[in-house]
């Protein structure tokens, strides 16, 4: 029974993991190929050819997770009809292009991207879709899970300038990238450049950066300083209070013993009263002055002469061998 339960729970976990994996796929970049501008320099830099050397529109998908997932059996489409909730799964599939199984290229490792050519020609292989992206028009791309029901991601693309692409540069931020920044199968880097560019333009001497960064560094260490200053004070205070409480308790005990000794009511178990009080006095002296948890840390190198260090004690008598008879 236990075995069956563990197998079932493993299966449940495995199924959940699969679903989580699919949700880690995000549309990353879209490029619309315009045959009319193929000769222009802009289009040349942005074009990305398929296995047959043909330029076509493409859709890039990224595995945003840090583990490997397979995108096989997922669906891509630009047909808004699939949003109809009353449509059955088999009917939806007819409006979409399914990513075939059995191709190792569809297995995406962490942060890896895959590019599908929207050329309407699935006979050309796994990376080709059964639809084309409209030129000069806006459209929406939908990425569906393998059940053709769960929408994993979608993006609305306005009509793009020739040679440009539409790319995701942050989690939910998309930007039109110029031809020289189009990056099929590579990270979208426009965002990074923009930050550096912004600093270069608005803070050419680095003063703002210095003020901001020093402010942050000081903030961190001041917060740590404040915390440990207060905490250290509290710890010291607690230790002092504990010590005062202990001393008070001993004082009370000692005064009680002295009082009892004066009255002669102390049970000395046959020990002389003077000896008894002397022992109590010695114990109190040791407690208040002679004992300590923490060493003073003062070292001395002043030599004290003892018989242990006496040179005469270091002399050794040469062992005498017994003569064999």
């Amino acid at each position, binding site marked *: 029974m236990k075995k069956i339960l563990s197998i079932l729970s493993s299966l449940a976990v495995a199924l959940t993991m699969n679903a989580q994996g699919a949700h880690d796929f995000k549309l990353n970049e879209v490029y619309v190929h315009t045959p009319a501008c193929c000769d222009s320099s802009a289009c040349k830099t942005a074009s990305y050819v398929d296995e047959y050397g043909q330029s076509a529109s493409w859709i890039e998908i990224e595995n945003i997770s840090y583990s490997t997932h397979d995108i096989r059996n997922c669906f891509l489409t630009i047909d808004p009809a699939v949003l109809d909730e009353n449509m059955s799964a088999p009917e939806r599939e007819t409006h979409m292009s399914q990513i075939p199984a059995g191709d190792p290229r569809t297995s995406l490792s962490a942060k890896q991207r895959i590019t599908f050519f929207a050329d309407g020609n699935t006979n050309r292989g796994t990376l080709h879709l059964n639809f084309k992206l409209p030129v000069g028009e806006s459209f929406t791309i939908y990425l569906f899970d393998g059940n053709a029901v769960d929408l994993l991601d979608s993006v609305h693309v306005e009509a793009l300038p020739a040679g440009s692409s539409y790319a995701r540069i942050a989690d939910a931020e998309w930007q039109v990238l110029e031809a020289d920044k189009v990056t099929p199968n590579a990270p979208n880097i426009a965002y990074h450049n923009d930050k550096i560019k912004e600093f270069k333009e608005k803070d050419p001497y680095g003063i703002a950066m*210095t003020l901001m*960064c*020093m402010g942050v560094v000081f903030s*961190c260490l001041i917060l*740590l300083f404040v915390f440990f200053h207060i905490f250290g004070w509290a710890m010291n205070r607690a230790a002092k209070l504990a010590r005062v409480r202990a001393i008070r308790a001993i004082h009370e005990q000692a005064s009680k013993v002295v009082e009892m000794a004066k009255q002669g009511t102390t049970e000395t178990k046959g020990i002389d009263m003077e000896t008894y009080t002397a022992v109590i006095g010695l114990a109190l002296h040791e407690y208040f002055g002679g004992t300590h948890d*923490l060493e003073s840390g003062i070292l001395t190198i002043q030599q004290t002469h003892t018989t242990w260090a006496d040179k005469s004690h270091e002399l050794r008598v040469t062992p005498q061998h017994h003569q064999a008879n």
Partner: protein
Amino acid sequence: MYHNTPDGYYKLSITNFQLELMLLESVSTMDFIGSKLADFLTYTGFANVEWANIIMIAVGAFFIWLAIKKDFEPLLLIPIGLGIILGNIPFKAAGLEIGLYEDNSVLNIFYQGVRLGWYPPLVFLGIGAMTDFGALIANPKLMLIGAAAQFGIFGAYMIALAMGFEPNQAAGIAIIGGADGPTAIFLSSKLSPNLMGAIAVCAYSYMALVPVIQPGVMKLLTTKEQRKIKMKPARQVSQTEKMLFPIVGLLITTFIVPSGLPLLGMLFFGNLLKESTKTTRLAKTAGSALNDIVVMLLGLTVGCSTQASEFLTLATVKIFALGAFAFIIATASGVIFVHIMNIFLPKGQKINPLIGNAGVSAVPMAARISQNEGLKADPHNYLLMHAMGPNVAGVIGSAVAAGVLLGFLS
């Protein structure tokens, strides 16, 4: 050919044709050997060497000499020095998968730790496991000196911008001022990977030269009387405080600068392993064997990455000049900040400005310099434990600074 003779002997008879054939065979064999040897010679370092390689090999040898003879950071300079030599052995690029930049070569696999930035956090794990933050907790105001010394980074950033570097490159170079090799490698691998080799070598070189750079600046900015200031012994720190420090430190710093998470997270993780007193074995491994392995691979691959074509450029000269400025500014700002603090501190609680230099994170070398300079001024003035406070604060400060720069520019 051998033939039987009537007297029973064999006689060797070779026709001219056969002789020619043999000669031809021997000639072709010789040709074959000759051509193969000639081909082999094209693969050797002698056939491919350039002056730049020789210069870089000399630089590597100089680093090894500094480490062995002058005892300048031998644990770092020996791997880096040998790495420089290794990376500059000339060879013919024939797809043998031997070079650092050739995919799947052994060196390339080791280099991924530098390129992808996972060696520096591992080094920070070791640093955390070896560092006692007790001196800092005992006197928390010393943390501010560690923060002030980070001005070395941003002073160098401004100079680098003025010298024409891009903001990302300037940030990668400026982090040298933190005097923290792993942080410099981490940040430059993210912001300016093409300058990483020069930045790493520069950072480690100047860290080794801390005893040469800092004392002059410290003396220049202090009077004889100030150098004699005696500081009260710090209070004893409880184990609870020590255990709490990595947790609170992690929460505060990473909530403010999440981009510093890889470095700060590993630093405080290592320290918690040490201070928890329950994971002594792990702390021991992190601080010794693991740290040693990573330092070896890091040093070697960083050295290898300084190939002549990439390293012998004007940018490298500028980086070395900026690195020196960064160290001087960092030292000076630490010392000056102590002077400013002393204005507000009551008599008897003044701080010796000689511990200001320790705000850079060259642990424990910078603190040792404070100690040595303090002893020179007063043979009974021991500053080592006081200087350890700003020194370890500098480690946190430089990691935070790197995180902020990364957050702004990446």
